[in-house]
C-alpha cells in the first residue's frame, strides 16, 4: 500500500516525491504539489525506497519529534488526523504556522518521554513516526507503543550520535534494535545514507 497523496513529480527540473498542500520551507511547487526533499526528511527516504511504512491516505498518525514541521507538513498533506509532538518551543513556533494551514494537524508542546502528558488528547494511531534526537530513542519508542493499533507500524529514524557520539554507529544501532525488540518486531532496518549520515531507518510492528 502506498498513499495516492504521495506522487513522483518533476518540478523545476528536480524529480522526487511530492504532496499536495501549502508550501512550508521554500520547496519547489507546481499545480498545488510541493516537492518532498529526501535530504531534509528521513521519512521521505523510506517512502522513496518504497518501504512499507503503513502510511496511507487518511491514516491516523502520531509524529514524535516534529521539530519545525518540515516532514510532518508533508504527512498531514495526505494523512488523516496527525498529532505532532515537539518539546522545544523555538521550532514549535514554526510548526504552529504549518499547523495553521492544516486542520488535521494537532500541535502538542510535550515531551515524548512522558506519553501520559498527551494520552488524554491522542487517540490510537495507524502509524507512529519517531524522529527524536535524544538519548534513549528505543525507550521513547517502547513508551509510546501503547498508542499503536494492533496492526499499526512504528517508523523510526535512529540517530547514532544522539545515543553516544563516541561509539561506532553500527554498535549503537545494534543496541537500539536489541532494546526495540522488547516490544516490537523489526521488519526493516537500513542505513539512510547517503541522504542522512549515521542514521538508521527502522519500520517495526508491535509485538
Amino acid at each position, binding site marked *: 500500500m502506498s498513499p495516492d497523496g504521495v506522487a513522483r513529480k518533476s518540478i523545476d527540473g528536480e524529480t522526487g516525491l511530492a504532496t499536495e498542500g501549502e508550501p512550508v520551507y521554500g520547496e519547489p511547487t507546481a499545480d498545488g504539489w510541493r516537492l518532498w526533499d529526501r535530504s531534509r526528511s528521513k521519512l521521505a527516504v523510506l517512502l522513496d525506497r518504497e518501504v512499507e511504512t503503513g502510511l496511507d491516505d487518511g491514516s491516523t498518525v502520531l509524529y514524535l519529534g516534529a521539530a519545525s514541521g518540515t516532514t510532518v507538513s508533508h504527512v498531514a498533506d495526505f494523512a488523516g*488526523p496527525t498529532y505532532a509532538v515537539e518539546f522545544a*518551543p*523555538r521550532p*514549535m*513556533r514554526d510548526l*504552529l504556522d504549518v*499547523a*495553521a494551514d492544516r*486542520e*488535521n*494537524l*494537532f*500541535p*502538542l*508542546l510535550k515531551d515524548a518521554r512522558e506519553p*501520559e*502528558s498527551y*494520552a*488524554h*488528547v*491522542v*487517540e*490510537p494511531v495507524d502509524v507512529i513516526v519517531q524522529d527524536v534526537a535524544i538519548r534513549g530513542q528505543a525507550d521513547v519508542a517502547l513508551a509510546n507503543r*501503547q*498508542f499503536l493499533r494492533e496492526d499499526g507500524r512504528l517508523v523510526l529514524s535512529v540517530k547514532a550520535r544522539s545515543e553516544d*557520539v*563516541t561509539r561506532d554507529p553500527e554498535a549503537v544501532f545494534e543496541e537500539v534494535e536489541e532494546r526495540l525488540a522488547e516490544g516490537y518486531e523489526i521488519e526493516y532496518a537500513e542505513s539512510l545514507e547517503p541522504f542522512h549520515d549515521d542514521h538508521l531507518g527502522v519500520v517495526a510492528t508491535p509485538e
Partner: protein
Amino acid sequence: MTHDESATDGWFAGIDPGDTDAAQAAVRDGSATAPRDWPTLAAESGFAEREEYYRLLHEATMAATRAEVREREQADDQQLIHAIRALDDCQRVANELTERVGEWAGSQDADADVDDEYIAALAEREPDSPMEDRLVSLADRIVGLQEESRSLQTVVESTATSVAPNLTALAGPELAARLIALAGGLDELAKKPAGTVQVLGAEDALFAHLRGGAPSPKHGIIYTHEYVRGTRPEDRGSAARALAGKLAIAARVDNYAGEYRPELEAELDDRMERIRARENQ
C-alpha cells in the same frame, strides 16, 4: 458504563464545546494513563460528532501550544540568552567593520591609526567625496553598534542578576549569561554536573578527547573568569574545577530556591586563596 468512565480522562471531559479557554487548559495540563478512542468517546458523551470534534481539537491544541510557546520563550532566562547573543553579534560586527574601515582609511591616509577614538572622529568628519562619504557613514554605523553593545551590556547585567543572582555574583553577568546560553536555559544549566559546566563552550576539544588522542580540556567559557585566567597555568585545572563546582551549585540554588546566598561567594574566594597560595610554597 465503562465508556463513560474512561471518557472522564479525555481532554474534552466536562468542557462546554464552545469554551476554548477551558479546552486549551485541559490540553496543556491534563493527562491520562492510556490513550483511548477519544473521537468515539467524545461523540458518545455528547461533546461533538467526529468532524466537529477534530475542528475543536485543532482549535484547542493550537491555542494551548501557542500560549505555552509564548510563555516559555518569554521566560527571562530565554530573553537573557537572546540579549547576550545579540551583544556578541554587535561586538563581532563592530570589530569586522572597524578592520574594514581601518584598511580603507589607511589607503587614503597612511598615518591613520585606527582605534575607537579614530572611528569616532571619522564618523564626525565632513566628507568631501562620494567615496569618503561611504567611509564616514561606515564609521558612523560602528559608533552606533558600540552604543548598542553598551545598552545590551546594561540589560544583560540587570537581567542576569534577577534571573540568577548567585551565578551572577560568582561569575559576573556576562559569563553567567553565556553559561545559561550554552546550556539552553537556567533549568538546563542547573541539571548539569560541575564537570560539564567546567567544559561548556569547549565541546570541540571535549569530543576530540572522547574520541581518543587529544588531551581533556581543562576549561571552556569559564576561562574568561579572573579566577581561571589569572591563576598560573600549573594550577588552572584546579582553579577551573573549583570554580565550576561553585557555579554548578549557584545555578541550582538560583533555579530551585532563587534567593541570594552570600556564603557561596565567600567559599569560592576562600578556596581560590588556597589554590593560589601553592604558588608561594
